[in-house]
């Protein structure tokens, strides 16, 4: 049986797709059979971030509608054998995601995968609720900014009341906080909410802090999940996140401004 992980946020543009790609690649690189599904029907992006957009033939909705089988729609990653991508439809309406259809696909994928990563669309409408409904774990991607934190809290309410686990009175979804686009310098200057601030408000287990990083754009330009850029701060932060998710105790990094920045700022006056 696979574990189903939803990457969710409520607010748009906070880094869900970036995170989904990094997590899926990270899990697969550690030998886990992983599939990452794009639930953003009509606005598919995951295939671009994964660099497989030209290999899309069939999509999630085709499979749900029986127009293709899973093996025809799954795209095997060229860099990592354990990783598959199930792209979203670019043309259909999001209502094509039926609960029964989604469940069928997840059940079938469960047989021969260890992890299923669901990249949720923004918002709290149908697409987002379908992405989280069957989840075992949820990674709530949050930026250190008022509207993102508020939306994350609303999403937590939805996870704990409108998921399959909640409706069946099962053990609740395990919820984790991933703080992204973190700028330690601005935090030190009191211009940005700190990790501690956000944790105090959301009281979630902190899975990681990903710094605001130029490497994210560079990676997405060429369709390479940023976790593969091992030199980069964001790549390392995502790699730590995967380790923590798998149960390792890894100290948090990139929480403080670089020492060089400190000193040069001091000397500049």
């Amino acid at each position: 049986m696979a574990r189903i992980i939803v990457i969710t946020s409520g607010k748009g543009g906070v880094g869900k797709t970036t995170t989904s790609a990094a997590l899926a690649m990270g899990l697969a690189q550690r030998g886990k059979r992983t599939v990452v599904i794009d639930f953003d029907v009509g606005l598919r992006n995951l295939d671009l971030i994964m660099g497989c957009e030209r290999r899309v033939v069939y999509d999630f909705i085709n499979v749900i509608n029986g127009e293709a089988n899973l093996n025809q729609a799954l795209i095997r990653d060229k860099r990592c054998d354990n990783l598959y991508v199930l792209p979203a439809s670019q043309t259909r309406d999001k209502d094509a995601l039926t609960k029964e259809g989604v469940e069928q696909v997840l059940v079938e994928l469960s047989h021969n995968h260890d992890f299923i990563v669901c990249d949720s669309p923004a918002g709290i409408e149908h697409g987002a609720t379908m992405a989280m409904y069957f989840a075992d774990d949820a990674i709530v991607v949050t930026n250190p900014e008022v509207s993102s934190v508020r939306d994350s809290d609303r999403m937590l309410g939805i996870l704990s009341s409108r998921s399959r686990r909640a409706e069946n009175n099962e053990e609740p979804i395990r919820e984790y906080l991933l703080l992204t686009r973190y700028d330690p310098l601005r935090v030190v200057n009191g211009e940005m909410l700190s990790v501690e601030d956000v944790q105090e408000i959301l009281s979630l287990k902190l899975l990681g802090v990903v710094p605001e990083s130029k490497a994210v754009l560079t990676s997405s330009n060429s369709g390479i999940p940023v976790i593969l850029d091992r030199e980069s701060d964001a790549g390392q932060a995502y790699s730590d996140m995967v380790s923590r998710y798998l149960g390792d105790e890894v100290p948090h990094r990139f929480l403080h401004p670089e020492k060089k920045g400190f000193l040069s700022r001091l000397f500049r006056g």
Partner: protein
Amino acid sequence: MGLLDYFLSSRPKGSANVAKERLQILVAHDRATRDQPSYLPQLQQEILAVIRKYVDVDMSAVSVNYEQGDSHEILELNIILPDAVHHHQA
């Protein structure tokens, strides 16, 4: 390092503090309303309509509070009547 920390932490704090305070209030409010049954606002409206047949009160005079305990739910209804009760003329 220690000295730098000292200097940096003794700076006047910026807008992040304001953000945190606003969020704490907002999130507490969101959570309180989240668990309420969705019929509550409608219920409040209808109760108000009934009361207004007899007494001249406005919306703010009626408050409906919902609380969930382990084994029970409490619906608390508070109606503040005006000092001098004016009956509607038929």
